[in-house]
């Protein structure tokens, strides 16, 4: 009996197996970090697979040293720069690398988007990003290993990592195991939190006829608040894209606020629409595609994007470092 059942079981396993692999790597020391990451990179290089590492700068240096001469064959990125805005990581780091590789090879990436210095303001965007990686890469022959520093990260961050990763590895102590509580959709919903209250700055109402005025007003104010050069251009672009989205997709009108906070200029657009696609703004657009890049541009240029959407409307808040 068991001999007959076994092939059936393995076929079922094969049919349900997603080629996408997304483990969390829990590490509690430098030694564990290197053991977990360098072995992942070396396995990829040995198989002839393309490998990228996007982790905070100090960890990038550890991995580079650990790899020695092999580091030359790996794409190395400082996640503090490339992934400062968590909403940028899927289109601008992970898919930017994976989509550029030749077909037929497993693409391997180490991505560490959550480090101890991430603020409470950034964290909901970080954990939603981790959850959305799964939807973004389902069906792809890609492995993304996400290290978590168990010494420095809060217990709820580690608990969330079990919900955003189908499997987990404890560096230095045993094989990859099922998370047991994997539920990325719940994480996306749970961290769809109302934004912290904005300070008492007046809101500018806009509709289709006032889009240019809204952008001019926001840009003038941001300049007075200390934004300049390309960052000011970026704020103008972000304001244009968000307000135009409100007019075209969000009920035809909205409100805009701009203010300064902790060395940043913030711009926020609220409208009555509801954003139902959690991957909006996180899919790279093929060059032939004509439209649909507005939210993607917002994610690529802002230092942080937080979004709250429900039946009452959608609020998008963007941070620009001065």
């Amino acid at each position: 009996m068991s001999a007959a059942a076994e092939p059936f079981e393995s076929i079922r396993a094969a049919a349900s197996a997603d080629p996408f692999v997304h483990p969390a790597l829990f590490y509690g020391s430098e030694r564990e970090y290197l053991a977990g990451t360098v072995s992942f990179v070396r396995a990829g290089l040995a198989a002839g697979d393309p490998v990228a590492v996007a982790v905070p700068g100090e960890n990038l240096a550890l991995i580079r040293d650990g790899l020695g001469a092999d580091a030359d064959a790996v794409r190395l990125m400082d996640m503090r720069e490339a992934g400062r805005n968590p909403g940028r990581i899927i289109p601008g780091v992970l898919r930017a690398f994976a989509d550029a590789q030749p077909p037929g090879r497993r693409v391997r990436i180490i991505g560490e988007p959550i480090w101890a210095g991430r603020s409470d303001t950034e964290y909901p965007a970080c954990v939603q990003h981790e959850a959305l990686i799964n939807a973004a890469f389902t069906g792809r022959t890609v492995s993304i290993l996400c290290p978590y520093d168990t010494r420095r990260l809060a217990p709820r961050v580690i608990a969330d990592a079990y919900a955003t990763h189908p499997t987990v590895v404890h560096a230095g102590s045993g094989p990859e195991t099922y998370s047991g509580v994997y539920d990325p959709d719940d994480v996306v919903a749970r961290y769809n939190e109302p934004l912290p209250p904005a300070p008492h700055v007046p809101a500018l109402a806009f509709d289709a006829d006032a889009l240019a005025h809204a952008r001019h007003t926001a840009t003038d104010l941001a300049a007075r608040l200390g934004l300049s050069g390309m960052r000011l251009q970026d704020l103008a672009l972000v304001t244009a894209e968000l307000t135009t989205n409100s007019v075209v997709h969000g009920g035809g009108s909205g409100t805009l606020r701009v203010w300064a906070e902790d060395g940043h200029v913030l711009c926020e657009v609220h409208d009555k629409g509801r954003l139902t696609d959690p991957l909006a703004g996180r899919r790279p657009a093929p060059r032939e595609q004509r439209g649909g890049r507005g939210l993607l541009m917002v994610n690529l240029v802002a230092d942080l994007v937080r979004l709250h959407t429900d039946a009452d409307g959608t609020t998008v808040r963007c941070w620009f470092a001065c």
Partner: protein
Amino acid sequence: MGIHNQVRSDVVDATPELTVSPLAERSGLRMAGEVGLATRGVWERALEQVVDGDGDVYYLELSSVTFVDVAGAGALACAAQRLPDGRRMVLHRPPPVLRRVLETFWPELSAIEVSMS
């Protein structure tokens, strides 16, 4: 400090405009104004002229264009991709925001050349 308009005040600004006129000295168009939702139609019709035009090089004089949104840049890239082999467009002094979007999404678009001189 915040935005001091409590209510919509579009009377402050005239309707955003984009004007298009042919260049006298060579094959091309001079544009002035802003490219956004309100002026996208004017912009896209001008780009149709570029695609339908003749001559190997088509100039777009953009030094008086102060803003182009992402959809406007997309329409430009789309027009450039429809140019037959050997034809190209030269953007003269495009606004920085347009270069930013083109470099982000279409970095290898050989049919678009930027001239800042």
